[in-house]
């Protein structure tokens, strides 16, 4: 991971299908790249497949009910082929994850210190004493007050914000190359949420890892990320830097999401909202999944998958509206207005 231009994470044509009582095509041909040291947010609503993507990256999906295809590599490791010992080395050491509910992700019967030390000892050959020293160091780094005594606390003895910090300490204890964050601030109060976001930003600089951050909240995405990928019905519809997505959204879904954000709506004015609701995904999409809700939809949107346009490096839009205008826009977009 010495080459800063190399991709830390590459996902190519990932498909995830759950079968059971109902078949769900959760992810449909997803491509995603992340450079090391980059923070990418996957922005999407419930059922868009954003959390499934993270779980697929850690191979956490129930094997018997899941069919997966495509390729995923993290730092050159072929994730699809991992199993047994290599898989447990990969989990926690190469990639680790933080969750929305730390109360459920932390083990209630062990102290915070023991849990972190245990994770360190599992991946590195160190003594319990050294592992506990590392745990203490991690608690300091996530700015938990009086870390020495917190080391001996059980998760239920901590407040929500502290638990989330402890979980971040646990996830970063083995210095992973890639951190997956599944709505880690959604359950927190506003004044605590911003603390955790700022902490993650600092830690990212300190540890230099890549982060894939999943959220439904645009405001959170803007605070944390370098780039944003907007996900809808199991695929990415638009990707770009935070500035590009916020100031120059191209896909009608992104535009709709931004418009329905209340950030600068005036009281009493009618909010522009996206009509309808997302598709059920019981069949694999063979046309633009957003077309039934789209004001610009044409006949061809319903007959074939939309083409993916790449108007610039790291920028892509899966919509026919990009046709013909992408080249001119490319020149205008640089330099980015301050």
């Amino acid at each position: 991971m010495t080459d800063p231009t190399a991709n830390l994470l590459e996902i190519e044509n990932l498909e995830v299908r759950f079968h059971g009582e109902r078949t769900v095509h959760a992810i449909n041909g997803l491509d995603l790249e992340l450079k090391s040291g980059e923070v990418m947010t996957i922005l999407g609503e419930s059922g868009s497949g954003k959390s499934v993507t993270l779980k697929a990256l850690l191979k956490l999906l129930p094997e018997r009910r899941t069919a997966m295809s495509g390729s995923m590599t993290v730092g050159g490791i072929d994730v699809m082929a991992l199993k047994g010992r290599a898989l447990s080395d990969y989990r926690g050491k190469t990639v680790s994850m933080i969750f929305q509910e730390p109360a459920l992700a932390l083990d209630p019967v062990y102290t915070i210190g023991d849990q972190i030390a245990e994770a360190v000892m599992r991946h590195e050959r160190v003594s319990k004493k050294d592992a506990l020293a590392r745990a203490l160091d991690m608690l300091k780094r996530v700015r938990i007050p009086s870390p020495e005594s917190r080391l001996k606390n059980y998760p239920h003895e901590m407040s929500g914000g502290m638990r989330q910090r402890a979980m971040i300490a646990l996830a970063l204890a083995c210095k992973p190359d890639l951190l997956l964050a599944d709505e880690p601030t959604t359950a927190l109060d506003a004044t605590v949420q911003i603390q955790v976001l700022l902490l993650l930003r600092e830690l990212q600089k300190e540890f230099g890892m890549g982060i894939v951050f999943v959220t439904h909240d645009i405001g959170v995405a803007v605070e944390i990320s370098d780039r944003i990928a907007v996900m809808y019905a199991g695929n990415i519809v638009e990707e770009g830097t935070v500035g590009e997505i916020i100031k120059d959204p191209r896909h009608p879904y992104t535009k709709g999401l931004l418009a329905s954000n209340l950030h600068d709506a005036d009281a009493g004015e009618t909010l522009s909202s996206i009509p309808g609701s997302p598709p059920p995904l019981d069949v694999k999409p063979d046309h633009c999944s957003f077309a039934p809700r789209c004001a610009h939809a044409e006949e061809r949107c319903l007959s074939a998958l939309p083409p993916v346009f790449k108007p610039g490096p790291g920028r892509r839009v899966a919509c026919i509206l990009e046709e013909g205008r992408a080249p001119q826009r490319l020149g205008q977009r640089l330099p980015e207005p301050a």
Partner: protein
Amino acid sequence: MRKGIFNRKTNAVRAVDGVSFTVAKGETLGIVGESGCGKSTTARLLVGLEGIDAGDLIFDGDRLGVDLSLKDLWDGVQMVFQDSYASLNPRLTIEETIAFGPKMRGVAADEARRLAHELLGRVGLAPARFAGRYPHELSGGQRQRVNIARSLAMKPRLIILDEAVSALDKSVEAQVLNLLRELKDEFGLTYVFISHDLNVVRYVSDRIMVMYLGEVVEIGPVAAVWEKRAHPYTAALFAAMPSMDPDNRTEVPPLAGDPPNPIDPPSGCRFHTRCSFAEPVCGKTRPKSVAVDGAADHDAACHMLDPISGHSKSAGGSRLEAAE
């Protein structure tokens, strides 16, 4: 229409302590605050789902328990709950759910059914398609529409919306907020809108009430509270909102730490443990609610605003520099 003074005491938690406020007919009062601030308890008190230990609830001039029975209260006040799944009986079709209330009031079954269909249509769910469905066959947004229709079926004048849009996706949230705004005008409703999301509360409310650990810290018209942010907690809460500007991200968190446990709230001003302006007086005396800039409709409970509190910044009612 006005609400009196509550003072709910239990052995464990004083979930809401010494809270007084009024809601004027036809307005929307927004209540914001973080977890444990007592906003949901306030909601349940307003519809009589929790008993009041001390204080009064006055609806339309009638005092609950004196001139007003719970049953009378429920004729005028209804509630929309947060969890759209837990608030619908999974074993009843949505038509049965909506018709249940009117039937309990003696409306004939046929008439209740007709009303249910009419209201379903009004909240945007075609009755022919949806009336016979069960809650688990609907999406979150559709279920919340059913919840709204159920409360409307009781023909209330006041609806308490307890985090009614918090669990919804953003694009659905906008749809439901638009619906609520239309219904308010059409049925002449009054809302008490409770949420942890300042953006939503700011958008829907005429007046805003900020709560912290069971107490009201600031109350006033949306524009005035938004501009002045008289209480340091209000200022922090507003500053904690995401900036939505990639070139101007938040750099310093407005507050450190978590809200304290409401079971054992701090003495004096309950916010003094997290407040950057705290002085000894704040830990000792509970601040009085005083008018902000002499405005009759804008109050805040902070020693810095009270000229005789003894806080060093209070002399001459000096304005608080925003805590951002």
